């Protein structure tokens, strides 16, 4: 399995598109925190969410999901999957090796982006310090949204296989779907609270108990549950389907 992960990492890091994606994404996400900090009204008190603006995370979600998907779509569209399938008949191991590479890369990038955004916003606004309650949680959540989405993308790619359909469904599911479900009624709110963007908002943008922030936000526990369940359920589905399917 270690050899397989090393092989997948070699493929990923050797693609020029990987280097560009990493560089541009980090710049965009940290840059969006800088822009948000500079454009904030001086009359407003600096808050935790200044370090994690929505524009930055939406960019990150779209890129991470597409990146995770492309590790599998690249195999299908180029025909490489045929050579890979002969070299590695153990298909579940292949998907897990890809998942390990994608998750590790995006966790490292996520940590850089979260720390970078927070530091930049702090330098511009002053008064964003680590000892405020919830800061550690927010940094962790901002770090892990990338790997969570990249794994969702990878799982979707195995299930759907056609590039365009995978990218569109990933964006629909992760970015647009939460907009469709209002938090003013019970059922739509339950669905909204199960999604990743609302979970990220709960963990990075709001302080205090649910009572204090109102029921537009889910609970911290539920938010972490969404972080865990989205990638793991899609990966399990991908493993089950990919094991049996003709490639």
């Amino acid at each position, binding site marked *: 399995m270690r*050899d*397989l992960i*090393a*092989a*997948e990492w*070699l*493929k990923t890091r*050797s*693609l*020029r*598109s990987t280097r560009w994606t990493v560089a541009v994404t980090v710049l965009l996400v940290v840059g969006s925190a800088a822009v948000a900090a500079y454009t904030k009204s001086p009359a407003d008190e600096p808050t935790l969410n200044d370090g994690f603006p929505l524009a930055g995370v939406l960019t990150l979600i779209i890129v991470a999901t597409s990146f995770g998907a492309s590790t599998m779509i*690249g*195999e299908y569209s*180029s*025909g*490489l*999957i*045929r*050579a*890979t*399938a*002969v*070299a*590695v*008949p*153990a298909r579940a*191991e292949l998907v897990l090796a890809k998942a390990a590479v994608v998750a590790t890369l995006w966790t490292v990038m996520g940590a850089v982006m979260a720390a970078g955004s927070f530091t930049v916003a702090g330098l511009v606004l002053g008064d964003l310090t680590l000892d405020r309650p919830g800061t550690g949680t927010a940094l962790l959540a901002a770090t892990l949204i990338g790997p969570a989405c990249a794994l969702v993308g990878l799982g979707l790619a195995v299930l759907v296989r056609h590039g365009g359909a995978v990218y569109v469904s990933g964006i629909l599911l992760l970015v647009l779907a939460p907009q469709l479900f209002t938090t003013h009624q019970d059922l739509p709110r339950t669905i909204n609270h199960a999604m990743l963007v609302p979970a990220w908002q709960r963990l990075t943008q709001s302080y205090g108990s649910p009572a204090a922030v109102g029921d537009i936000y889910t609970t911290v526990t539920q938010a972490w549950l969404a972080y865990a369940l989205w990638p793991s359920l899609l990966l399990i589905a991908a493993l089950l389907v990919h094991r*049996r399917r*003709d*490639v």
Partner: protein
Amino acid sequence: MIEVDQLVKRYGSTTAVAGLSFTARPGRVTGFLGPNGAGKTTTLRVLLGLDAPTSGSATIDGVPFRSHRRGLRHAGALLDAQQAHPGLTAAVHLAALARANGLPGRRVDEVLGEVGLTEVAGRRVGTYSLGMRQRLGVATALLGDPPVLVFDEPVNGMDPEGVRWARGLFRRLAAEGRTVFLSSHLIGEMAATADDVVVVGRGRLLAEGPIGDLAGAAGSLEDAFLELTSASVDYRAGGA
């Protein structure tokens, strides 16, 4: 040794392979012939574990290929010229496959030299001609130094020098005691390369045996092939 036994493969209501049985032996080049749509590629896909058989079996050295965790030491295959990522160099493509199979890095240089791609190994595969991609596919197949080699239309897109090179390579691999299984439409090429032939039509076996026996009866391998497959050609020009 390749053994296909009562193999059936259906895709929905289409039957691609309908109870096919044959054997390809070590030390020989076995040609796999048949008209378009005869089920050749499907048979190779099942043999290499890309597709699951509907019923029956296809094994390499007595084992279904999917039961291996890593494949390249057991069999090598060129199934299609399009089987490398266009954004990767040939060297990286081969290095990743070698690494995944626990093969030493020097195998990459050896097979690149073997197929004549050493000079262009640092170029991205997207810039390769069809003939170069075929050579890369052959290199991929040879990487694990396997006892069984499967090639689907390997000389398609190669220039005459490449065709002659490939013919020599296949003969040599068989002489080394390997099982070489070769599908092609090019009957002349097959007549010059293969020891045995397996002829299929509409997913069934039409003939199997040493090439001399088959060609001898009809005069030439081409005559024998056309006679055998006359009832199983799906698409024919001129409305015949």
